């Protein structure tokens, strides 16, 4: 299995999903070798044998590798390639890279390559190099199926398939259209398209994503199968009682403050609720390229005294934020799946999600609204704050619903897909 990150070193939902899936697969007797570009040594090894791509030797004399390299080196990096990094970090990376660029091409054909494992400016080169590592691992180990997660690892998957002749399953967690909207990067699109075209099966995290794969990438619908994500059972519960410091009800948005996540709709809805009920506080937790614009909008609407920005939250603070919340809102414009509502529900917080999220396909006990329908969103928030039985229903039924979304059952479907191609 080719991934890009693994807990605890994660920047997005991909690593968490991979971890959950591998653990689930183990329960169905599937043994997983998980390849990451850079292992830190403290990753959880309970379910997998982790292979550090940086340790893999690549035989540069092999013509297959050379050919592969020549095919992929031409790809240049575009500004949309860095999904989980803010613009200022990005600029910093770019400037660093200009200084080191010259050395890099020579490094490529040394036997070992030091991967950064980050979503940086030299990402394309890492992707290409990672493909070589993939091929090398494929030539030197025993396995039945190759499984590649997201475009970063597709080249590795395809290379491994070519070398070994084993079936390839690619997993689409997010498409380039989800990340970048219509200003998509053609190189990334091409890697995604090629990866899926070469694959024996394509797994999508929702039917929403499945439709994109079929319509925008023209992949044969028969080989595209939806396996919805799941959520890990909570490790600790005591934090759920985290004390609330204010007496008002709290409505929370938690995620990157980017176009894709629809933060502006949350603000407009907040304004509508506050016009009627001042005893509510709205919290926007996270950071992103739209953050400043959002702060300005909140100020313009004159709701700053009831609207708070927390910046980026991590680990325990995320749990604490959920525990303090009375309503969680995910107004995403486009969300292949969206795991955060499940985490909120697990913390007994009722949620409002956009119909444009994959997770809406598996949840019943939530309010679903169109991301653009600010009136409906405000209405849902207001209802959850004022009509007690709605809360009760969501907490009792929602928790049960989430607890039924087990990685074990998702992994069962994945294992069945493996069976179908072996």
């Amino acid at each position, binding site marked *: 299995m080719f991934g890009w990150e693994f807990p605890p070193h994660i920047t997005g939902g991909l690593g968490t999903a991979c971890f959950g899936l591998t653990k689930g697969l183990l329960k169905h007797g599937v043994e997983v070798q998980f390849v990451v570009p850079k292992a830190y040594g403290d990753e959880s090894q309970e379910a997998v044998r982790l292979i550090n791509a940086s340790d893999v030797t690549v035989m540069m004399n092999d013509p297959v590798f050379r050919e592969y390299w020549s095919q992929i080196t031409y790809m240049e990096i575009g500004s949309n390639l860095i999904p989980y990094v803010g613009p200022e970090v990005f600029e910093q990376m770019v400037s660093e890279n200009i200084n080191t660029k010259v050395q890099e091409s020579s490094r490529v054909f040394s036997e070992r390559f030091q991967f950064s494992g980050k979503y940086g400016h030299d990402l394309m080169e890492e992707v290409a190099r990672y493909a070589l590592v993939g091929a090398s691992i494929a030539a030197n180990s025993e396995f039945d199926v190759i499984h590649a997660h997201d475009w970063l690892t597709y080249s590795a998957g395809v290379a491994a398939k070519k070398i070994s002749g084993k079936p390839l399953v690619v997993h689409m967690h997010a498409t380039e259209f989800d990340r970048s909207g219509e200003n998509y990067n053609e190189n990334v699109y091409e890697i995604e398209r090629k990866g899926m075209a070469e694959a024996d099966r394509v797994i999508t995290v929702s039917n929403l994503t499945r439709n994109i794969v079929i319509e925008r990438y023209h992949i044969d619908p028969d080989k595209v199968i939806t396996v919805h994500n799941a959520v890990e059972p909570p490790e600790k519960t005591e934090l759920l009682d985290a004390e609330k410091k204010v007496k008002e009800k709290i409505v929370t948005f938690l995620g990157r403050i980017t176009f894709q996540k629809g933060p502006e709709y949350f603000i407009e809805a907040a304004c509508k609720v506050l016009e009627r009920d001042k005893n509510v506080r709205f919290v926007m937790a996270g950071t992103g390229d739209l953050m400043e614009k959002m702060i300005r909008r909140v100020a313009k609407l004159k709701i700053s005294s009831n609207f708070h920005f927390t910046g980026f939250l991590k680990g325990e603070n995320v749990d604490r934020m959920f525990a303090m919340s009375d309503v969680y809102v995910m107004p995403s414009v486009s969300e292949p799946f969206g795991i955060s509502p499940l985490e909120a529900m697990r913390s007994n917080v009722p949620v409002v999600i956009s119909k444009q999220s994959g997770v809406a396909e598996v949840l*019943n006990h939530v309010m*679903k609204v169109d991301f653009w329908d600010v*009136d409906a969103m405000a*209405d849902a928030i207001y209802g959850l704050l004022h009509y007690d039985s709605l809360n009760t*229903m969501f907490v009792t039924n929602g928790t049960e619903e989430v607890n039924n979304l087990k990685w074990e059952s998702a992994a069962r479907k994945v294992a069945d897909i493996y069976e179908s191609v072996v």
Partner: protein
Amino acid sequence: MRSICLYFQVHQPFRLRTYRFFDIGADHYYYNDYQNKRIARRIASDCYLPANEVLLGLINEFGTAFKVSFSISGTAIEQFKKYTPEVLESFKRLAQTGNVEFLAETYAHSLVGLNDPAEFKRQVHEHAATIKELFGVAPTAFRNTELVYSNSIAGMVLDMGYKTMLTEGSKQVLGWKSPNFLYCSAPHQRLKLLLRNYQLSDDLAFRFSQKDWNEWPLTAEKFVSWLNKVEPKQELVNIFMDYETFGEHQKADSGIFGFLRAFPEQLIKTRKWAFRTVSEVSTDLQPVASIDCPHAISWADEERDLTAWLGNDLQQEAFSSLYKVSGIMADCKDADLHRDWNYLQASDHFYYMCTKWFSDGEVHHYFNPYGSPYDAFLNYMNVLSDFLIRVREYAENFPAAIETTNVRKALKATEKPVSKEKNTTKKEIKAGETVIKKPAKKLAVKAKTK
């Protein structure tokens, strides 16, 4: 001759418009006129008119050998008056034949019988008066919304002078007994009970067009042969269903109208069965046993209970919030409040909030104008919040409210129908604005302290 009793329920609710929380206190019109009109007209042309035509044809052809019974809810009658008067005319023609009995029910098609005897009686009286006015005959038999029945409801119905009532031939209540006899209520033996034969009724209402049903296609011959297979000692078969079965639930292209035409003819030809109305059955037959029913039953779902309307927390909160003001509404003279009070009680609103269909009942989903039961609840509660504010306000300023009613009456009398409505709404809002804000705040405070 054995008896067969056909009974059809006719009902349409006033569906609510999308009503946001910021409309509370600002806009007091709750109904989706466009949708209600569209649905009323569609069902009129797909179901009520053609089905009435078939029944009228059968009566003309077979005279007293063919009879049916109906109950038409008060809200359905109002919609006919408003949107499709030709349907009402068509029912009147049926009434004039003398072969059709119209039953009494709660005016609002409500579940009020479960929790408020006074309001229950008021609604039954209002409905009976409406039926008498329309069809010239006062109802003598009663059927409750969704055939909801219990010992205590039986007592109230008998109190009001009805001798006969319909309910479900529920296994939970009947046990080993057959629904194919006349029964009476155990604690109130003078009230006779007709029990629905759900097997034969649902063969038509639910299974008629199901192509994966092993009896499909269901022909009139086949249905008559099933009736003939009913144990000879059993003297009565009650076929009760929604009238919308004909042309709406079972579309015209399924052949349901052909069936409705052919089946009575074939049954009459056997000379073994007589079509009787509900009250005729009740006078002609003797009850064979009594039915004890301490807990309410209905004709819905596998469970035949109330869970489709009052099964979850949402439904119970909405239901109990509504009836908090029944004391005030009993004396309310305000025409608009009275209308809303009726319309908001319709069982349909609670049905839309049912969460059972997440696991089973496709039926619930099909008839639900909302995307989810939670949307239904939210919308209803917003409307109800506004309604409750108005009712409390009315109670607080009783004399002032009377005055407004008079002003409105004067407006209605003097102005043209079209402009009238607009003017009143505007005036309402203007007049209401200053007064309404106060209770709105009060309500918000209450919600917080809960």
